[in-house]
């Protein structure tokens, strides 16, 4: 069983649509990170959230850390083909980060 669950597993949408992907756990994390990974490359960090209830915005991306620090969401407004990729969340426990299985997003032009 995964310590971190992500949903949906796959998502295919048209350019211009909005979407939200979720990262859930029964564990409490001291911080949580979101990464985007493109084929043949390593993950690239998008954001780190630390405080329960924290909301961070990065252009069209909005990240929220749950009040109990067990879950997080990533909302993308007006998705573009360049947003296509694998979105991974990673929760910090002690000195290590535990990664979820990812949401594979495809934005069609």
């Amino acid at each position, binding site marked *: 069983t995964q310590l971190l669950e992500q949903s949906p597993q796959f998502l295919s949408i048209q350019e211009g649509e909005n979407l939200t992907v979720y990262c859930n756990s029964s564990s409490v994390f001291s911080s949580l990170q979101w990464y985007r990974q493109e084929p043949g490359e390593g993950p690239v960090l998008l954001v780190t959230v630390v405080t329960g209830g924290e909301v961070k915005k990065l252009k069209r991306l909005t990240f929220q850390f749950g009040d109990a620090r067990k879950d997080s969401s990533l909302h993308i407004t007006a998705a573009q083909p360049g947003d296509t990729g694998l979105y991974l969340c990673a929760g*910090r426990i002690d000195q290590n980060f535990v990664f979820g299985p990812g949401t594979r997003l495809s934005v069609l032009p």
Partner: protein
Amino acid sequence: GAGVSQSPSNKVTEKGKDVELRCDPISGHTALYWYRQSLGQGLEFLIYFQGNSAPDKSGLPSDRFSAERTGGSVSTLTIQRTQQEDSAVYLCASSLVGPSTDTQYFGPGTRLTVL
């Protein structure tokens, strides 16, 4: 400056053979991590090096897996007597200090296929 580099980019081997995967971290980064990424799975933590401290090997799946970091820089992940279930992308990352809230910079990975 250059990012994290890994070699080879692809490795195909036969079951039972040993393989070595190399990681060159970003210059000056004291922390180095190895992860394994299988299809449909998240990144699985393998091992973590921090400066001259003893490495955190808690994620290594079996004693066939080992890693070294020479001179606090280049790291080699060795898999002995490879099995088909070892097939995966092996990712290396480095960070300036450690895993607290520091940013991990990932290399492109080595795709290992065990036939």
